């Protein structure tokens, strides 16, 4: 028996599989990479460049999938913290700075739990239902514009796609409830389906008026039409529509006061009763991704998407025209390449110089501070200033950076509103919930559509006449 096989016999089964794989990775992977780069490289590049649309799509999907995880973590942390603050508590504060890693640890906990499926459950459906729910949540990210031009796939039927994909979540919930082999789970699933189907109708109808006004269903197109100043936001032209959309979206995302599908304090999580481990984690994650999506949609459709409330350059032009002032628009031309060799010197010198400059006051005023401590402080301060400066420059210089920042500020403002509502409102009763959808929201949405259509016709007639 050779020494290699003897030492391998001490390893567990997983290790016996993993160690050969590692060997393959170390030895074979570089060879393959080199071969690919030399032989297949040019061909691959030409294939990829001729299929740019597909590449773009795959990259967008991957980015969206990756983005959904930190977004959900941030929202979970925000929910814990904000509701705690509203209860005069402090909330999570032990893991990470201010408890920021709390949701991360919760995610790890969910991963490490036993993934249990009940006897007689339909294993296949039971496993894939949470994935379907999560997938529908993530897929809706694809058409949401995060900034000018920053959209996964700019579909011209973006809004339709959103509602179609969002409707698939109902199927996921039903499957989850049905496959659990538990009559209460099934009832919970049906309940969730009833709620989501009912609220999908006013949700969809509330944006039809907006579509009439915008003339497009592309979310990017709708976002572009709200540029300039905040008066162009659709919320001022569709206040009733925005209100209905907000309420219906709250119900669609299963948030308080419409969180009857979960009702964590009353029914045992409804359709998710039998779920545990990461399968439950998927359902849980999908809920929080949905919160972000609903907020992002609210911002995109009614609150100006990535546009700043007041475009300074446009405001200046407006003032120049109206009052005869002569204000120059702020234009930053970021052209680092123009500096030539000076850029290299700048990169080498500026960090060192600024570190020393920031360290000096500390070193001079604090006699106890050693030189290296002062330098460390100066370096930290330099980093803060540099990152701040970089962000500021990017914010001014590049539209899409400013767009992303505005988009996230507004979206998380709405996430805050959803959390705020959860900290305030009690849960509604199921008959009130359904009655409210069918007796109030649906007629109001129809009224909104009717008023909008009439207004468009009247305005067109006035313009023509």
């Amino acid at each position, binding site marked *: 028996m050779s020494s290699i096989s003897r030492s391998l016999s001490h390893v567990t089964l997983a290790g016996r599989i993993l160690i050969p794989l590692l060997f393959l990775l170390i030895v074979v992977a570089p060879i393959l990479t080199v071969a690919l780069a030399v032989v297949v490289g040019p061909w691959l590049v030409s294939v990829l460049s001729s299929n740019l649309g597909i590449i773009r799509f795959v990259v967008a999907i991957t980015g969206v999938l990756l983005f959904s995880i930190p977004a959900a973590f941030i929202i979970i942390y925000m929910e814990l913290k904000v509701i705690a*603050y*509203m*209860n*005069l*508590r*402090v909330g999570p504060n032990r893991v990470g700075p201010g408890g920021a890693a709390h949701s991360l640890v919760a995610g790890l906990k969910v991963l490490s739990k036993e993934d249990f499926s009940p006897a007689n459950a339909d294993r296949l459906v039971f496993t894939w239902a949470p994935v379907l729910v999560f997938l529908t949540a993530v897929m809706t990210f694809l058409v949401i514009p995060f900034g000018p031009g920053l959209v996964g796939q700019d579909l011209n039927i973006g809004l339709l796609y959103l509602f179609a994909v969002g409707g698939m979540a109902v199927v996921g919930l039903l499957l989850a409830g049905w496959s659990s082999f538990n009559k209460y789970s099934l009832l919970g699933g049906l309940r969730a389906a009833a709620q989501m189907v009912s609220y999908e109708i006013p949700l969809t109808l509330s944006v039809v008026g907006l579509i009439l006004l915008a003339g497009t269903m592309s979310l990017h197109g709708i976002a572009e039409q709200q540029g300039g100043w905040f008066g162009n936001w659709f919320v001022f032209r569709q206040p009733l529509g925005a209100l209905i959309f907000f309420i219906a979206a709250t119900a669609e995302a299963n948030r308080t006061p419409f969180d009857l599908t979960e009702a964590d304090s009353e029914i045992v999580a409804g359709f998710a009763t039998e779920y545990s481990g990461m399968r439950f984690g998927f359902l849980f994650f999908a809920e929080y991704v949905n919160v972000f999506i609903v907020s992002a949609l609210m911002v995109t459709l009614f609150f100006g998407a990535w546009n700043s409330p007041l475009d300074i350059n446009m405001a200046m032009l407006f003032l120049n025209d109206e009052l005869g002032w002569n204000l120059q628009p702020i234009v930053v031309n970021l052209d680092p390449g123009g500096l030539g060799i000076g850029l290299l010197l700048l990169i080498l010198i500026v960090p060192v110089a600024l570190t020393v400059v920031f360290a000096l006051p500390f070193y001079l005023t604090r006699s106890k501070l050693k030189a290296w401590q002062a330098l460390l402080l100066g370096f930290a301060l330099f980093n803060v200033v540099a990152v701040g400066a970089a962000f500021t420059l990017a914010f001014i210089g590049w539209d899409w950076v400013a767009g992303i920042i505005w988009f996230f500020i507004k979206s998380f403002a709405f996430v805050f509103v959803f959390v*705020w*509502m959860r900290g*305030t*409102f009690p849960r509604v009763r199921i008959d009130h919930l359904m009655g409210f959808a069918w007796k109030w929201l649906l007629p109001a949405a129809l009224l909104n559509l009717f008023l909008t259509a009439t207004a468009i016709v009247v305005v067109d007639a006035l313009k023509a006449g």
Partner: protein
Amino acid sequence: MSFIPGIGLVRGMGLTLRRFFQPKATIMWPEQHADVAPKFRGRLQLLYDEYGTLKCETCFQCAQACPIECIDMGGVDTKGRFHVHWGAPETYGERREESALRRSGRPVADKAYAPFEGIDIEPLDGILEAHDYDPREMLAILEETQAEYGYLPVAALKHISRVTGAWYAQIYGTASYYRHLRFEPPAVEAPAAGTAQIAAEASFRSALDASLGYGGGAN
């Protein structure tokens, strides 16, 4: 204001937003500790030392300090000489109950440990002699003992057990099985007015008459 639909929702949201910015009530234990009032006495508890002995020395400081006088305690003084007790007078019946007495450390009466009264065992020895100290004739022995003493005293039963060799428990079991055998003397009936009592009354009456100035023997 209340007639505006949805005003309640808005006001509720306003309340929670105000709470959001208010100082928090959480005490960051274990870094911080709650402010405890000087009057706070905590939980009353008797502690034991490492040998399992009660640490209480019956100094009554706790009972003296008790602001609502709820402590009722007793025990043996530190020299082990006499029983001491602190507490309100026994106003209520339940305080004289056995469990209440035990709880407060006071002595509890137990008949089992009371010394039994001695008897004259001469007649009992005669009865036993007649039956040849045979435990198989226990019922006859017991009946005759009861006829002699009026009941079955504990001392008599102990003596029978010792001399016949039968277990006390067996003798007690035999005696308690039969209804006509009793362990207590029968209830004493009030004696009828006898001549001694009449004489006492006459002397009392004459003394009364003399003190009141009546003629001797006259009415």
